[in-house]
């Protein structure tokens, strides 16, 4: 019964590699966007603050699939051509960057007030204070929720199969069309995601334990 799955395992694993690549690339980009948006939201001037609010509102209210469709259908008319894979990565990063911004903003805000005061009393200010005192502590606090957002992101990459990118979900659909064995094949696809996400969630829980001693 599992012959179908075994016969097509190489193809699924190839898809898994693409999924990992898409996830890693968009998670890295989303983290950068998240940090930038969080800092702009906290310390930007009123205009950039308003702009980040609009960005967060749109990303939280519109489905990722709609954003992907919008990118694929609307961008060609503007003359911008980023290619299918890069486009997918950018949209996923923009979408999850909004969630990461919330993670980092909450982390910066949860660095205790006393730490800022102590740093100021030592004569630090501005960039130095942020870099030496706040950011290292904030990154620690942000660790576990960041990993959780990464899990959402890995699952989110499955949507690019709907707009035609080839990764593990798409590979699964192609194999099912050929073999008519949806249980085995989609079970295998689910297993790929499960392995990635479960490892991430264990890692997140481990981080959570390690971080909790700070305060």
């Amino acid at each position, binding site marked *: 019964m599992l012959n179908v799955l075994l016969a097509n395992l190489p193809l699924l694993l190839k898809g898994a590699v693409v999924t990992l690549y898409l996830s890693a690339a968009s998670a890295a980009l989303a983290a950068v966007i998240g940090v930038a948006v969080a800092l702009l939201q906290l310390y930007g001037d009123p205009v950039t603050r308003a702009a980040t609010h609009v960005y967060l509102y749109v990303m939280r*209210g519109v489905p990722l*699939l*709609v954003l992907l469709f919008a990118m694929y259908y609307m961008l060609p008319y503007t003359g911008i051509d980023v290619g299918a894979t890069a486009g997918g990565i950018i949209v996923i990063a923009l979408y999850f960057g909004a969630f990461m911004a919330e993670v980092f903003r909450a982390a910066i805000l949860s660095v205790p007030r006393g730490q800022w005061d102590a740093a100021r009393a030592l004569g630090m200010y501005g960039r130095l204070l942020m870099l030496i005192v706040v950011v290292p502590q904030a990154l620690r606090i942000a660790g576990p929720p960041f990993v959780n957002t990464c899990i959402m992101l890995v699952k989110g990459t499955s949507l690019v199969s709907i707009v035609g990118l080839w990764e593990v*979900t798409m590979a*699964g659909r192609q194999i099912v069309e050929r073999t008519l064995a*949806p249980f085995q094949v*989609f079970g295998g696809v689910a297993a790929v995601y*499960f392995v990635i*996400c479960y490892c991430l969630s264990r890692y997140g829980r481990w981080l959570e334990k390690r971080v909790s001693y700070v305060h």
Partner: protein
Amino acid sequence: MKLDFNFILRNLPTFLEGAVVTLELSALAILCSLVWGLVVVTARTAPSRALALAATGYIELVRNTPVLVQMLFIYFGSAVLGAPLSGFAAGLLAMTLQNGGYMAEIYRAGIEAVSQRQVEAGMALGMRRHEVMSIVVLPQAIRKVVPPFTNQAIVMIKDTSLVSSISVAEMTFHAKLLTDRTAAAYEVFLTLAALYLAINAIVSAALRLLERRVAIPT
């Protein structure tokens, strides 16, 4: 870029037709996962070790796999079994299974957030375990789960867009057809995004109102 508002107005009925399906699926999925989550959390916190372990395994399984893959699994799987589900039913089932897992964790966090001392105080007053649960713990826990429930509800409304890929004619499906037919990508997708934003704004405003109404006065 110039938007053709006449085009949007002319095709608004199509969007609204899809919006009805989106809203139906969202409402049903939210209700079903509220109930299913309660079942899962009961098993998760049951005294029976095997039951608790099974529930934990279930929660990990549904939370660590994409809902799209679950939908495909159920949709194409049911066809092979000889009892094909409609796309709507398969989508509803997949969303209920996944979000029931999330809801169970939300319930559990709410129950655990009620101080253990309150349980002890209830016991000291001579209440039985189920009385402590229904009179002391649950009324407080339910109030605490409203904010995370709101987040989950929004996630679910957005996830309904995925059933467009198993041929359910909801909003995103209609939008895609409309773009394929007219090539008016800007008009279609800006309208679609605006409709989702409007639905989510209304739902989260309503739930925030609920949150304020049930809040424990301080």
